[in-house]
């Protein structure tokens, strides 16, 4: 089991962040997204090779233009 933005999802061995987005139906329409796993930010360049551990607490945050 993993938690994504406080909602539980099934954990699959070997799943990376792109696999997770597919499960979530997340289409990456927004260009800027932050992913934290167990409070550690995972760089976009590491999304493919980072394997999500079981029981991970994951936060996916959209960053919006404006400042």
């Amino acid at each position, binding site marked *: 089991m993993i938690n994504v933005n406080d909602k539980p999802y099934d954990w699959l061995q070997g799943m990376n962040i792109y696999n997770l987005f597919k499960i979530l139906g997340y289409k990456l329409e927004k*260009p*800027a997204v932050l992913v934290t796993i167990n409070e550690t930010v995972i760089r976009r360049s590491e999304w493919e090779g980072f394997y999500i551990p079981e029981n991970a607490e994951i936060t996916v*945050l959209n960053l*919006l*233009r*404006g*400042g």
Partner: protein
Amino acid sequence: MANSRSFTIAEISETHNILHTPEIASKLKRLTIGIAGLGGLGSNAAVSLARTGIGKLVLIDFDKVELSNLNRQAYFLEHIGMYKTEATCDIIRRINPFISIELNQTTITAGNCMKLFGNVDLVIEAVDGAETKEMIIEAILTESDTIPVIAGSGMAGYGKNSTIIESGSGRLRIMGDGVSEVAPGIPLMAPRVSIVANMQVNAALEILLGEWK
């Protein structure tokens, strides 16, 4: 008529001691906060931090003040054409001339981010572009083990006060409603931008000073 009297550092420090307590005033004087971008979020955050009596600010922005900035940014007509770093410095000096300020008119990149902010206690992310926000947050949180980042995301339009919230945890906090992106017909306006800027400063104080009791 403007008051032309000069004030001493002792007078300003004593006022902060009285208003904020000596403990808080002393802690604030020892802190350095970096601000990435001096638009609506950054310029208003800088003013708020100056009023708290922060010891040092590191201000980074490549841009100059334009007339179209004055609907939400802290600048005045006389600042148009100046670098935002220098204009922000001018405003801060009028509030408290004894704050130490480091200015840099440069574009923040993944390569220079930690060089610019490596010596600060906390960074306020205040840039406009979403991808630049991601780059700054990623760079600081992955290349430093200690520096927190307070970001802003979702502040366009007006009204809907109760939707502006704080999210994130640990070293990353994000202020905003998370949905209101600036777009044609959805402008950035002073009230919501200033609210988010001051929430960023408020969260920064909470992280750096400890929770209010």
